């Protein structure tokens, strides 16, 4: 009726909205370009120095970024899998991470027959792999027990599930403190990979590349599982529309249990890698819950690709900020994580690969 009258203002409003929608993207592109220019040419007075003058430092920072991203991916992929399918923010994910680390350290100590100052030379590949599988296995079973005891009968009650798992982290943290003590402990890498590579004149530890290798392996296996198997298809379908999956006669409870088992196992693998890389101590659980949360918020909850992209972005920011912020500001590197979060959420409120629930 009066559409002809309304068309003018509507069109200009649409145009204005379109411009507004593009603005954050343009701002981010500009910011990325500015950061790249800074890192390449301008970063005097920083711990690393401009990349064009000190390519070695730059390469090491890049390697740090990808290898840390690998560790992030292993821990966060399980988290995102569980959330994506079950809409359960498993706040106990960090506890499973730490539990696996402690168990693996214990098993390694008893396998090597020594409880302090283990030399990497005395640690064979099996003395690392078997404890890793033991730790991750315990985490997987613990995760399954949590899911069966507390979560499965609260399906759809997200707040309740989150609060319950959060309470569990407190209980588990105390119990682990009692059992394993308050001192930081380290899982010892096998001697065969405790070497250094030379990267443009800088020494770089092979163990970090090993972490990256494990992450790639985990990523490939997960991808094959999700794309090539019936269970994987059901999981992806469940992320899209849980109710419809049930309407096709599929027992989604069983799928939930399998997913929780695998997700918790991955938390455990992450925990053992983390304990080998940076040690395990009270508080590690909270840190890694936070890390996993940041990664999946950036990448989009419930998406494996998102977990990979989120890990890479987060790893990049974590590695580059202390190296390329002016030296007197290095202390503020941690803030850059939140800048990253704010930027991503400004352009993609559901994360890079996320969809509204």
């Amino acid at each position, binding site marked *: 009726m009066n559409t002809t009258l309304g068309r003018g203002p509507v069109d200009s409003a649409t145009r204005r909205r379109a411009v507004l929608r593009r603005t954050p993207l343009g701002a981010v592109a500009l910011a990325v370009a500015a950061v790249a220019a800074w890192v390449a040419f301008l970063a005097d007075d920083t711990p690393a120095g401009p990349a064009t003058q000190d390519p070695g430092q730059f390469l090491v920072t890049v390697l740090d970024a990808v290898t840390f991203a690998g560790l992030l991916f292993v821990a966060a992929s399980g988290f995102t899998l569980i959330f994506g399918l079950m809409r359960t923010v498993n706040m106990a994910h960090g506890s499973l991470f730490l539990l696996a680390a402690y168990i693996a350290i214990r098993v390694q100590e008893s396998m090597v027959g020594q409880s302090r100052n283990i030399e990497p030379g005395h640690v064979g590949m099996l003395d690392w792999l078997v404890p890793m599988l033991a730790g991750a296995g315990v985490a997987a079973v613990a995760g399954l027990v949590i899911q069966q005891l507390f979560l499965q009968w609260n399906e759809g009650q997200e707040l309740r599930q989150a609060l319950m798992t959060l309470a569990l982290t407190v209980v588990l943290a105390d119990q682990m403190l009692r059992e394993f003590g308050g001192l930081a402990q380290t899982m010892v890498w096998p001697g065969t990979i405790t070497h250094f590579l030379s990267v443009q004149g800088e020494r770089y530890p092979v163990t970090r590349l090993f972490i990256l290798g494990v992450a790639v392996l985990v990523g490939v296996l997960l991808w094959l599982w999700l794309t090539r198997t019936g269970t994987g298809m059901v999981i992806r*379908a469940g992320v899209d529309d849980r*109710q419809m999956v049930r309407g*096709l006669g599929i027992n989604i409870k069983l799928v939930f249990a399998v997913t929780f088992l695998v997700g918790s196992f991955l938390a455990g693998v992450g925990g053992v890698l983390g304990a080998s890389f940076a040690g395990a101590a009270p508080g590690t659980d909270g840190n890694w819950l936070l890390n996993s949360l940041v990664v999946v918020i950036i990448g989009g909850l419930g998406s494996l690709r998102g977990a990979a992209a989120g890990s890479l972005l987060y790893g990049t920011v974590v590695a580059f900020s202390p190296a390329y912020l002016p030296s007197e500001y290095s202390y503020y590197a941690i803030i850059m994580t939140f800048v990253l979060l704010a930027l991503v959420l400004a352009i993609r409120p559901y994360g890079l690969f996320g969809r509204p629930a």
Partner: protein
Amino acid sequence: MTPPVSTEPLLEVRGLRAGYGASLVLEDLDFSMGAEAVGIVGRNGMGKTTLCDTLVGFLPPTGGEIRLRGQRLDGRAPEKIAGAGIAYVPQGRRLFPSLTVDEHLAMLARRTRAKRWTPAAVYELFPRLAERRKHGGAALSGGEQQMLAVGRALLLNAHLIVMDEPSEGLAPTIVDVLVDVVHRLVDEGVAVLVVEQNLRAAVRMAQRQLVMVSGRLEAEFSGAELLDRPDLQSRYLGVGGADRALR
């Protein structure tokens, strides 16, 4: 397939009540059907989709009984109801955007061994789907999406298929295909319950038409009768009269 026992209907619904929170949408709804095609027509907001959702267990009923071949299904989980033999082609198709055409069918393939409907049989029924095997569910045309939604439901090898607005937004040629599929299913002894807004499509799919008004099935007509009588159409379906101006 053994012929349906005439004394016991395939699907029997008695005193069904269901709704959302405090608001009751279905009130003491009764009907029964054999291995035939039955249509449910009615205006918007009369509870047609609620009835479908309740039959397949997406919405638990607050009262009444649903029996399929004598087996009580009301209040059971959707996967149990699907397993007992009711398949659902929901409104809006509800395909899985993350899955390809092939994966939609492969996901259910394990249960279809030595059954009438396998992924291969679905591709034979809808050759257009076979051409688009590797495409994602969201990349299909509306008609192809509907074929996939029907094909997915067929893989359950169910006794009854509930279709909610299958012709919605589809080209006439695709509606022809769907009508044909419904007839074939009935010929093979599968019951089909079709909820439709589009009276012409509904009548072509099912001779028996139940009219839904405010959460109850108020009347039953043959398709021909409904088509011939504008007074019934304007009374029950909001077609003609003042309503026509709004279309």
